[in-house]
């Protein structure tokens, strides 16, 4: 196989497999749920140190103290734990201590000492260590987890819509090419008419007027993208039709559906594989374009297009919010395009 000897093809295939695996199992390994928001850690920049760091701990404690209706008299840090001295003239309400673990930054608190008849409370509370390698978004959600979870949706839509487009295109193209004559002329004229329609506008219309949903988007994308495939398969079929093995099958009494399924379609696999590989990035691009406009994937679900749109909105304050999902999206698209090119070269008998 010539493909194996192409370094570009192997590299892009590796990248694709890595991204797919990361998206598939990654969200379970990052330690965050993609919807979990940390209100005290909004728009953190990308970085490896454990959070909350000193810069975020102070304000987070201030907010907690305000909510617990206590004064924060002293904060001492002992390794991974904090010793807080809480005071209130009306007495510290012990029930308010549940606010500490609820903020997700701290573990369960332990009362160390009680002074002044309950008006001062010394509490030991373990500090959790949270990691956000790619930072957090405006709501304080882990961006890495979100990028990976978004990748699941983007890749799933890319594959599913491409598969539907592939099935329609192959069936349609093979039928038109095999029947030939008037049927072929009518069928391909229909494709020409569809080519002339402003499809992206129709898809936008469809999604604006009927509520955006995953199914509707899948159908809309597949309806747009099957045309190229139909043309490729038809052209290939036209030449296959006259070949001896097809005539032999015909002479043996095999019907048209049988010939198409057994002899035509398997022999169009090479160009179909190339077209399909190049179709997937187009579909992902269209999906993220629609999601960017707010017409595609809806909250709480997310896709790379949604994340890029979020990032573009807060690009001045937090450029990493655009960079992270954009990097995932672009890496996937480049790898798919390069792999498709390599596949085309490998399957093209005329190229050296």
């Amino acid at each position, binding site marked *: 196989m010539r493909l194996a000897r192409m370094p*570009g093809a192997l590299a892009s295939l590796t990248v694709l497999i890595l991204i797919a695996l990361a998206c598939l199992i990654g969200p379970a390994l990052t330690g965050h749920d993609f919807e979990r928001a940390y209100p005290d850690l909004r728009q953190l920049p990308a970085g490896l140190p454990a959070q909350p760091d000193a810069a975020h701990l102070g304000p987070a404690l201030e907010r907690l103290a305000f909510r617990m209706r206590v004064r924060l008299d002293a904060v001492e840090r002992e390794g991974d734990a904090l010793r807080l001295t809480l005071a209130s003239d009306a007495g510290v309400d012990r029930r308010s201590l549940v606010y500490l673990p609820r903020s997700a930054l701290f573990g369960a608190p332990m009362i160390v000492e009680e002074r002044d008849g309950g008006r001062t409370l010394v509490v030991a509370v373990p500090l959790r260590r949270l990691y956000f390698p790619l930072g957090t978004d405006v709501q304080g959600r882990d961006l890495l987890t979100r990028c990976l979870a978004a990748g699941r949706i983007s890749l799933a839509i890319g594959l599913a819509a491409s598969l539907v487009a592939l099935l329609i295109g192959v069936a349609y193209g093979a039928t038109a090419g095999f029947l030939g004559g008037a049927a072929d002329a009518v069928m391909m*004229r229909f494709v020409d*008419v569809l*080519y*002339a*329609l*402003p499809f*992206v*506008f*129709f898809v*936008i*219309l*469809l999604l*604006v*007027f*009927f509520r955006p949903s995953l199914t509707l988007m899948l159908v809309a994308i597949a309806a747009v993208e099957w045309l190229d495939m139909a043309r490729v398969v038809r052209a290939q079929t036209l030449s296959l039709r006259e070949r001896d093995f097809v005539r032999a099958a015909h002479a043996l009494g095999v019907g048209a559906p049988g010939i198409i399924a057994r002899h035509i379609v398997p022999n169009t696999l090479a160009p179909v594989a190339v077209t399909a590989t190049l179709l997937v*990035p187009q579909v992902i*691009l269209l999906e*993220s*374009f629609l999601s*960017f*406009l707010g017409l595609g994937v809806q909250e709480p679900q997310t896709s790379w*297009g949604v994340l*890029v*749109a979020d*990032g*573009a909105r807060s*690009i*001045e304050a937090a*450029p990493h919010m*655009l960079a992270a999902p*954009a990097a995932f*999206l*672009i890496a996937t*698209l*480049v790898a*798919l*395009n*390069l792999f498709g*090119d390599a596949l085309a070269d490998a399957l093209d008998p*005329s190229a050296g």
Partner: protein
Amino acid sequence: MIRFILRRLAQAVPTLLVVVTVSFFLMRLAPGGPFDLERPLAPAALENLRRVYGLDRPLIVQFGSYLAALAQGDLGPSFSFRDMSVLDLIARGLPVSALLGTLALVLATGLGVGLGIAAALRRGGVIDRLLGIGAALTLSLPSFVVAPLLQIAFGLTLRWLPLSGWADGAPSHLVLPVITLALPQVGALARLTRASLGEILRTQPVRTMRSLGLPPIRVTRHALRGALLPVVAYLGPLAASLLTGSVVVETIFGLPGIGRYFVEGALNRDYTLVMGTVLLVAGLVMTLNLAADLACAWLDPRLRVAT
């Protein structure tokens, strides 16, 4: 040739009819209407509005009267832009989109075809290798990522160019949108040119010309005529999509073009505005495809017989 053009024009009529019918009924079957405001109107006022715009009549009657008006070149009044007809809005938006599209088309064609020729002439050379990666990269850079990045780099950090806005087409406002529009097409055109020219350079006639000692420039010129066929065929739909405005680019850069009017029309349930823009786009797509086919026939005599 004349017969070919006439036949294509005759084909365009049913296609446009399909466009009108599909978009008309698609919009009307969807829930919501143009007068659904955040504060609901009084029932009597709503009833009046619907009567003025003819929305109270049966759907099929509305469709008929729309077609009748369309046959006279009237696209109707806009629902959301007060006292403006759809034709007025198109007359405002089209020059914006067309100017941006033309500049982007010229830039993309010049750069793309040039790079493609350079790569095909020196297979395996520096340009050829860079193009392999570069083309895949530009094809994979979505305009909605490129646009904010350009805004950051040239608008916010360097402060060379304005972030967004139109300013009556001041040149500085055109630079970033045009680059965003042209960038993905540079890669596509370069790749297409490289592939088709490379193929022709390997054919028998070209080898013969070379072996007869023709200077490389003249060989290339002969080969180029054939090699540009697929490029010209690609330029038809490309020109159509660039001239009719990009929804994303016009939204991000805040440009008052056709794409913007379409999106606003769709969001406001402005039936006539949406129909008008969709029809305009469909008409332009078909016209430019026809122009591309004619150009191909001019380049390749074999196609003239076939058509």
